[in-house]
């Protein structure tokens, strides 16, 4: 399979589809885009309402009346459209850090940073919390059903609860928790009202302290080659993490101090040590479940015999299609599998949720001589190198550690044919603010 085949997987849009798009665009004449000229008026009203809340007047009547007059029906997407798309906004929000002491039990994975927490289980439930500067509030608050004020750690806080309809038959709630002194609001959106309110109750924002001198980057020898790789225009996204941050070679037994994105609690710290990396001809030390959880396909049976020995040799037929006519030549190919097992001991230097999602352990296939990813890291000829099992499985599994606790992650990787000579085990992590990319590489075959 070639990448080109994937690009051409769906033909050009059909005539019917194109016609529908054109009809839809024609309909826009009768629909108004969100009216921007209301923004200023709303902003004034909100500021008045907040000022009143902090003074003697009751904000409830003011805000309810105001929003009662300007309410328009809206869908969930108005709150799901992210500010993360705009780098300028990210920059202005970087002084904030949100604190979420309570997160619903189901929310163990998703997207998290200092200013945003997003969780969706791809079913009905989601929780979305993000920081919004007060300039944004005017265009966002609508459908207010309740307004209240409270004091939290000495800060006056105004809470707007809004009801948001989605597809008429289901209600979602959005809550704006406005912090006047900080000049920002925490915006909460979720489908479960009770859980949402529990989250809102304890949530706070903090202004981040001015950071010290930026940490000096330490580069291993690989970084130069990887920079060359990027300058060659080969970026394309897939390996960007290596070129945007630290890359170090690591030895067995050497500690890697990692700042990782801990869902719900921003950046956490762990120390990881690759304690061993050995070649095996059996699945000894690994659990069958570790293979099945990692993929929807039973990888254990694919690579191992029932007695646990590696299926070392295998053959397959490759058909080379001439310009995709599929009338090409069939070639019998024989492969040799090499199997390695690595043990990585991870100690939590602070409490951490979702250890498995916090950093990545993978394999990259890099050719130092040509300073490129061997065979472009792809599998045009069927040869491959990849992680086939991992303790406790895939990204849907979670594990929480308390400070000082240690867990051992064991991975198994397959390298086919000469890929073994070019394989590097890579441990990579990024902090919650995406400021510090950390990548450690260990050559698999000595």
């Amino acid at each position: 399979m070639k990448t080109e085949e994937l690009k051409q997987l769906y033909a050009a849009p059909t005539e019917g589809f194109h016609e529908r798009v054109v009809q839809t665009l024609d309909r826009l004449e009768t629909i108004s885009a969100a009216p921007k000229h209301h923004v200023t008026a709303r902003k004034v009203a909100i500021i008045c309402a907040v000022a009143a809340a902090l003074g003697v007047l009751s904000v409830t009547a003011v805000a309810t009346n105001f929003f009662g007059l300007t309410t328009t029906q809206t869908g969930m997407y108005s709150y799901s459209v992210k500010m993360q798309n705009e780098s300028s906004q990210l920059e202005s929000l970087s002084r904030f850090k949100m604190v979420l002491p309570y997160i619903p039990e189901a929310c163990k994975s998703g997207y998290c940073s200092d200013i945003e927490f997003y969780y969706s289980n791809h079913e009905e439930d989601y929780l979305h919390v993000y920081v919004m500067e007060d300039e944004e509030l005017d265009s966002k608050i609508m459908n207010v059903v309740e307004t209240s004020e409270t004091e939290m750690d000495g800060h006056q806080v105004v809470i707007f609860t809004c009801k948001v309809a989605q597809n008429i038959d289901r209600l979602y709630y959005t809550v704006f928790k406005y912090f006047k002194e900080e000049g920002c609001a925490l915006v909460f959106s979720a489908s479960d009202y009770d859980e949402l309110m529990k989250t809102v109750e304890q949530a706070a924002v903090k202004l981040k302290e001015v950071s010290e001198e930026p940490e000096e980057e330490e580069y291993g020898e690989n970084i130069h080659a990887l920079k060359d790789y990027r300058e060659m225009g080969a970026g394309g996204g897939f390996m960007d993490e290596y070129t945007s941050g630290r890359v170090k070679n690591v030895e067995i037994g050497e500690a890697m101090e990692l700042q990782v994105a801990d869902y719900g609690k921003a950046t956490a710290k762990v120390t990881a040590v690759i304690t061993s990396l050995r070649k095996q001809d059996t699945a000894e030390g690994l659990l069958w479940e570790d293979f099945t959880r990692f993929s929807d396909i039973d990888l254990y049976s694919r690579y191992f015999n029932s007695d646990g020995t590696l299926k070392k040799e295998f053959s397959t037929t490759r058909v080379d299609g001439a310009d995709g006519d599929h009338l090409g030549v069939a070639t019998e190919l024989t492969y040799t599998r090499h199997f390695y097992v690595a043990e990585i001991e991870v100690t939590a230097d602070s409490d951490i949720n979702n250890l498995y999602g916090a950093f990545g352990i993978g394999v990259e296939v890099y050719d130092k001589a040509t300073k490129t990813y061997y065979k472009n890291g792809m599998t045009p000829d069927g040869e491959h190198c990849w992680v086939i099992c991992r303790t406790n499985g895939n990204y849907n599994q979670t594990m929480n550690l308390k400070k000082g606790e240690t867990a051992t992650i064991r991975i198994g990787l397959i390298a086919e044919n000469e890929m073994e000579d070019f394989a590097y085990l890579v441990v990579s992590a990024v902090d919650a603010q995406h400021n510090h990319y950390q990548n450690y590489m260990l050559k698999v075959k000595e």
Partner: protein
Amino acid sequence: MTRETFSDLVMESERTLFCVAMSMLKNETDCEDAVQTAILTAYEKLDSLKNEAFFKTWLVRILINVCKQQLRSRRRVVSFEEYSQAEEAAPADNIDVRMAVEQLPLPVREVIVLYYMEEFTVKEIRSILHIPEGTIKSRLSKGRELLRLSLQEN
């Protein structure tokens, strides 16, 4: 942004909208509905887009949300007739690849489609799907492997 500019940007993204919706919904009629809803939603919420440069990723994200919503509300069982129609819509010479892609788990499939078919970068996909880059990479890796295995079996 004027309505004309909005329309132009939508037309520039038409192929991407088609591919993303088809890969998720596998049905042209549903795909048309989803894209229509996404365009209308985007237009109504245009004020939340602060930078036109991000229009495409923003629109694709809205579309993906609409598609997921449709998948949730769609009945679980697809009739044989619909399935056959979906197969017929694929060009004959890449039916195996297309079926392999469409059999990928949704979280993996959407990453594969955005990266390989629509050539979004990992950072853009992060903006669209709101998942960490490490997760995107692992899903790409998993997707490639599952595709390879699936196509070998065929």
